[in-house]
């Protein structure tokens, strides 16, 4: 048996290997919190439904829509991720910190990391630079919208009108 042979040959390696396996088993059994490098690999394992609402962000640079088919997957992911993440990151961070309070509450400061507050202006400046790199031209006007869709029989149909993202104000 491999573990027995490993134990006989190198006890340190045996301890590291079996320790990691135990931690991996525990973290995966508990379902939720991870501790890098002990991870869970459950991406897209939960149930998803065709009726789920899909959120789509669209960016207009100099009044031209950035076509997701003309940019790289990474660039499109950047747009879709950060426009959703920015308005939600403070609440997300607060909830995560609350979850960890029982583990880290004994630390100085109650285990609450200092929160960097980013202004809309700072985010817009940063986002504009990123979009400039994508469209490879100076941006005079930048707008973004958010719209929700659902799948109905043969295609995605909007369930609301596209709303302008007010936090993005580069004009």
């Amino acid at each position, binding site marked *: 048996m491999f573990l027995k*042979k*490993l134990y006989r040959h*190198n006890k340190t*390696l045996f301890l590291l*290997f079996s320790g*990691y*396996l135990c931690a*991996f088993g525990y973290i*995966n059994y508990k*379902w*939720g*919190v*991870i501790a*890098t*490098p002990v*991870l869970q*690999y*459950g*991406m897209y*394992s*939960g*149930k*998803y439904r065709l009726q*789920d609402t*899909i*959120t*789509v962000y*669209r960016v207009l640079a100099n009044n031209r*829509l950035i*076509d997701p*088919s*003309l940019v*790289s*997957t*990474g*660039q*499109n992911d950047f747009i879709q991720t*950060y426009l959703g*993440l920015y308005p939600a*990151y403070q609440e*997300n*961070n607060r909830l*995560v910190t609350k979850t*960890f309070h029982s*583990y880290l509450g004994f*630390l100085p400061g109650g*285990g*609450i*990391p*200092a929160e*960097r507050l*980013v202004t809309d202006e700072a*985010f817009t400046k*940063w986002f504009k630079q990123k979009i400039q*790199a994508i469209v490879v031209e100076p941006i005079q006007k930048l707008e973004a919208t958010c719209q929700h*869709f659902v*799948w109905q029989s*043969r*295609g*995605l149909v909007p369930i609301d009108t596209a709303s302008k993202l007010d936090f993005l104000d580069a004009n």
Partner: protein
Amino acid sequence: MVCYFLLWSGGSLLHQTAPLFAVHKLDLSLQILLLSGLGDFVILHPWLQALLDVTYMLLPLLLLWAVLKHSTYQYFFAFLNVIYNIGYSLLLTGLSAMSTQWFVGFIFIPALFMVKGELSFYYALHCLRYLFIIIFFSAGLWKIRAGGLFNLEQMSAILLRQHGSLLVSAPQNWYASVILSLVRQPGIAYIFYALGALAELFFVVGLFTKRRDKWLLIILLLFIAFNMVIMKINYFPWVAFGFLFWYSKLNEPLPSITKTPDV
């Protein structure tokens, strides 16, 4: 170096990301790192972001040099690579929206070079092989545990989520047409999901025998390729784990015998 190039070409290195804020995740290690204040310090100092990126590229090169030269620094550099790569991946994923799972190869592969001697290397290689099999198998188990495998519209719904912006903004695009046709036929789309889960579950065979390792290697490469084509998720760095299944066929080296001096 290929993976470093992937990060660079995707504009995903720390100095390219130029992060603005930290994104906390349910990761205890990340939370401790952010509590130390290092995350904010990195955000505020672009020169440090560049320095961390350069170090991230240099450390594997130093390890390669030490291995090729049979230098005793090999063990130190290997250890440094493992620790640094954990820290770097935590920083990068904590200050951006990237996934930590992408970096798992960067963290584990250098650990192979932390051991001394051929026999220990053989055991380390097999430890990593077993570890990867368990990781891959666990992904299949998750699909059973969380119920995805028992949901016939699973893959169609995932494709909508994954490619939503493309389907809405450029439905006439050829790739969008292919994805839309898959979404419209949930049964066919589900076959891809089920095959993916079966591929992950099949890895359990590797816990009992090494005779199917070539199959596991092929399955791993196909899995990565299909992920890239259908999901546009790039798991290329996991190709490094494929070598574990290629080299596992090598026989266990004989233990070195310490010669006693002739009297």
